[in-house]
């Protein structure tokens, strides 16, 4: 079951996603324990594997720390649905092979706690709680290619 955890806020930043006090490690499981801690201290206890984060504009703004993506992935979050993403966060996610959904429509329609079904290739979300069908623009081809290869390093390894 994929449940939506909605933060109807713009500019959720990397300091909130993973505070700098935890940057002395790059262990994903360790980082996951503090995921979103300064935004919602309950987050980690609420989420189940496969759940998604829903937020407003400019998600992931702030520092270049990839730890933000690792913390979210470590918390077994399937994807982040936002109106827009900060540039470095967006790039980091793709490079890590982590899907993102950029859709204002989805953010407007999805409510906290809704159950979702997401098809990344088709660009479709089914909100099973409300019955709404939402479409979104899938990631560009080169990004999908990197994600398919399992991230940027596997991708470049092919040409080394």
């Amino acid at each position, binding site marked *: 079951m994929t449940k939506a955890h909605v933060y109807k806020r713009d500019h959720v930043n990397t*300091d909130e996603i993973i505070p*700098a006090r935890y940057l*002395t490690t790059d262990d994903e499981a360790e980082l996951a324990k503090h995921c979103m801690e*300064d*935004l919602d201290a309950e987050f980690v206890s609420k989420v189940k594997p496969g759940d998604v984060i829903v937020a407003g504009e*400019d998600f992931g703004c702030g520092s270049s*720390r990839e730890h933000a993506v690792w913390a979210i992935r470590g918390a077994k979050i399937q994807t982040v649905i936002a109106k827009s993403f900060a540039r470095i966060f967006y790039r*980091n996610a793709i490079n890590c092979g982590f899907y993102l959904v950029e859709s204002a429509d989805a953010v407007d329609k999805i409510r906290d706690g809704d159950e979702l079904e997401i098809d990344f290739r088709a660009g479709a979300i089914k909100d099973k709680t409300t019955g709404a069908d939402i479409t979104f623009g899938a990631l560009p081809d080169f990004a999908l290619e990197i994600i398919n290869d399992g991230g940027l390093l596997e991708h470049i390894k092919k040409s*080394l």
Partner: protein
Amino acid sequence: MGMTITQKILAGAANKEKMVPGELVDANIDVVMCHDVTTPSAVSMLLEKGIDRVFDAEKIVVTPDHFQPGKDVKSAELHKRLDKWAKRHKIKHYYKIGKAGVCHALLPEQGHIRPGQVIVGGDSHTCTYGAFAAFSTGIGSTDLAAAIATGKLWFKVPESIKLVLHGSLGPGVYSKDVILAVIARIGTDGALYKAMEFVGSALAEMSMEARMTMTNMAIEAGAKNGIIGFDETTEKYLDEHLTDGQDYTVYESDSDAEYVATEEFDCSKIEPIVAFPHLPSGGVPITECAGKEMDQAYIGSCTNGRIEDLRVAARILKGRKASVRTIIVPATPMIWKQAKDEGLFDAFYDADCVIAAPTCGACLGGFMGVLAEGEKCVSTTNRNFVGRMGHPKSEVYLASPATAAASAVEGKLTDPRKYL
């Protein structure tokens, strides 16, 4: 249609004549900046994939700075991993403790930055180097790993926003006030994915240090890069700092280059400004917020920890006492020595300030000035996000070194112009 300076540099780096915004390019990288937080992860990733190589041991610059000297066992481990890797690959420009400093102040000072280059770094404020008419942007650990191994990265050529800075800055007003005013107007995503190109008469009067304060904060408006064209000031700085005698390429924007937006600022009207928590766009003129009580003043970082910044702060603190905790962090060992030789440390010492070793330290809530619950800090850094300098309920107020120093004296937000 002409090209902007950003387009031209990326075209050059991809060996192409023409480049339009939105195009994807595989660009050759001239400099890769590595520090202690993001690089150890990049190295581990490479090792995991069996790619233990660097594309060019002379084009990678390494400086541990965030938790330097090691603040605890975990950060010491990061330094150890970084050290092992840098030595194994014989990284030529590896600044060990004693020579290490805050990356974005250190690289230009040590002559690693030149016009026309493509520079990447595992740090969001890598956009700082755009002050030297270079394309420079921050990346995460995976990108960093790829850049280290291959010397290439993919980029989407950004659209450009033109920021025209008219007029001259008034007394007590600095480039920090200008960039805070810019971000207050366009917002923290006002330049998302874009290049912020600064032009105008006010720039001509700014030193390279002052310009770097502005390009440093381009990321605070969401930009991919900040950039300032080449002029005599740039040339003079480079003459003093480049030591290897190698030449560089100067690009400039065509007169018919396309900009998605143009914002004009009359710098003579800009006042000292303080960005209130919790966004860098929360700028309030000092005349409207003076008197708000502070618990700490912090003068340092890649934004404002350079010698000029320390001089301004020392001038205000000299012969006075700081009435709140005041922490001074020269950004590099050279700046530290210069400040000492110029007698600035005497002024700080007499004013009861703490003088720290070069480090990022408390700028990111690391150590040496971390805030307790409910504390307020006026800081010359670049971010005032929730929990940035310590407890999630602490608050950071971004300001120029002059405003921070004046506020240190009075223990509350203070207009620096009364101390000029």
